[in-house]
């Protein structure tokens, strides 16, 4: 549990007291043992939380405690342990529901956010009887997991996939979308990310919901980067379906969530068939359980749900307002510091306005050579700084920006400003390392 003593250790050896604004990392860092590690002889600066977050002890202990003392299958084992496991599992569902302002029966557990979006695409395609002439709208800034399921759906049904473009500063281009009538009476589904995993852009979800609903389309939101970082209330969000994933919000891998408005979930057909999703099975045909069980075939990730419940408890105890405030502060600081690095170009908004904590960038060496993100990543790693390099599962966005790949630093509630400083220092070193070779002279 976080130490409430502000003077507690955990401040990474800074000679001066941290500004009070950056209090959160000092409170929580001791709960994340991995953050004490040294990597390649340097203190770890973990700046890859948009990829996956680190896990606090409370989450790991909840998971191991469940597996060691309460393990049984859920919903069918009638013994004491079965009752305990079922209660813990459904308790996790209730916690997740409360965390996003939902009804418990609106929370569907999946394998990950990708499966949640595939579930949405499959079941909506069938429910809406999608066919030629119908349109599905996404955006060019989506993660592959919010593009490919809709491409596959359109291939299966003959519907057309269309997409929002972005402006030069990395925001959704709503003006050109309106001019070209992107969302129109043919639009049956609009599926967009809340926060870009590359640009950090926070999209105007409520406005987009109005746009979708005005033409009678279902509005799906990919909340993978948003739900971990900000307070969420699905009753005012405007989404019909919301996908997110446990492992980016202090929870374990192997668990995703699809929230849906119950009135919509009730009308959707099953996705995967199997145990637990049925009502009555006859050889001639079956009837299906009500949501959420209808969409949860087979034994679910029980311990993972228990752990996600613990993660949600941890986040709630800190307060999502405070988590969001920290993200804003550390993003502001990182944007300022990174813009001081010569040859560094930030993709997406350069001011922390409607902007999440993922900061992607390109880097040019001191002799004017583009340094490939994998090479950036490799040099940073040799100095203990963990970032991601590549297309971040958003190849169309990189293509749109005219580049092949980028490096990305991303923060979370435990990220301290001196980790940003370590990144900046390592980037300067990287520029010199690759700039010191003339080439061409051979």
């Amino acid at each position: 549990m976080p130490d409430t003593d502000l003077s507690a250790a955990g401040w990474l050896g800074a000679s001066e007291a941290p500004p009070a604004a950056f209090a959160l990392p000092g409170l929580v860092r001791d709960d994340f043992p991995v953050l004490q590690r040294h990597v390649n002889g340097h203190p770890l600066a973990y700046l890859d939380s948009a990829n996956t977050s680190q896990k606090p002890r409370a989450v790991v202990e909840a998971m191991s405690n469940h597996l060691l003392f309460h393990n049984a299958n859920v919903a069918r084992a009638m013994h004491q342990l079965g009752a305990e496991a079922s209660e813990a599992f459904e308790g996790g569902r209730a916690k997740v529901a409360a965390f996003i302002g939902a009804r418990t029966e609106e929370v569907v557990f999946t394998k990950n956010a990708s499966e949640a979006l595939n579930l949405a695409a499959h079941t909506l395609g069938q429910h809406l009887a999608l066919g030629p002439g119908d349109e599905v709208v996404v955006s060019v800034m989506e993660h592959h997991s919010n593009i490919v399921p809709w491409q596959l759906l359109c291939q299966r049904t003959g519907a057309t996939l269309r997409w929002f473009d972005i402006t030069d500063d990395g925001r959704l281009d709503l003006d050109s979308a309106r001019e070209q009538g992107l969302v129109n009476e043919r639009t049956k589904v609009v599926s967009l990310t809340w926060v870009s995993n590359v640009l950090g852009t926070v999209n105007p979800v409520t406005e987009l919901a109005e746009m979708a609903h005005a033409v009678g389309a279902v509005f799906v939101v990919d909340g993978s980067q948003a739900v971990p970082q900000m307070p969420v209330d699905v009753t005012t969000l405007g989404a019909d379906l919301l996908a997110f994933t446990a492992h980016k919000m202090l929870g374990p891998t192997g668990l995703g969530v699809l929230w849906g408005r119950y009135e919509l979930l009730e009308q959707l057909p099953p996705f995967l068939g199997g145990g637990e999703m049925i009502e009555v099975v006859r050889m001639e045909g079956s009837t299906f359980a009500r949501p959420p069980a209808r969409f949860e075939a087979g034994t679910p990730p029980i311990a993972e749900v228990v752990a996600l419940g613990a993660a949600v408890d941890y986040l709630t105890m800190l307060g999502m307002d405070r988590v969001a405030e920290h993200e804003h502060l550390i993003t502001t600081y990182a944007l300022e510091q990174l813009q001081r690095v010569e040859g560094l170009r930030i993709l997406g908004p350069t001011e922390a306005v409607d902007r999440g904590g993922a900061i992607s960038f390109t880097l040019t060496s001191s002799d004017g050579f583009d340094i490939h993100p994998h090479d950036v990543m490799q040099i940073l790693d040799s100095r203990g700084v963990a970032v991601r390099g590549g297309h971040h599962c958003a190849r169309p966005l990189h293509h749109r920006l005219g580049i092949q790949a980028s490096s990305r630093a991303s923060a979370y509630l435990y990220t301290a400003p001196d980790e940003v400083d370590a990144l900046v220092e390592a980037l300067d070193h990287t520029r010199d390392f690759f700039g010191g070779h003339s080439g061409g002279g051979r």
Partner: protein
Amino acid sequence: MSVESMYQEIILDHYKAKHGSGLRDPYEAEVTHVNPSCGDEILLRVHLDGDTVADVSYDAVGCSISQASTSVMHDLVVGRTVEEGMATAAAFTEMMHSRGNHEPDEDVLEDGIAFLGVAQFPARVKCALLGWSAWKDAVAHALTNKEES
């Protein structure tokens, strides 16, 4: 295992001045290979003159390791027979899968021995092999095309 052992001067020189880069005619086969995890891409053409590799031309984007390796490959296969080139490819591949425990033959691999350090970083081995796998594939296509025509 230092990062400096991976980024040998030779590698960075090849990266900054890629030998044989650009697409040229004539060619008998053209292939595209990608590394889906990082997005490195290469479009590569092979021109055979009898048994001799007359030209290898390519348009590639990617990290220093993949680009330098392709540049070194160009030097090692052009002007040699297909058989010699395939033997060199096998020697290079063997070195890359050695995890660095290997004594490469400089007479065979020439500048390619600089990649021994890369073999210590398993995540980067596929970068070093991208151009080579494209070349082997293109040669196989070229030989098949020749038989069919």
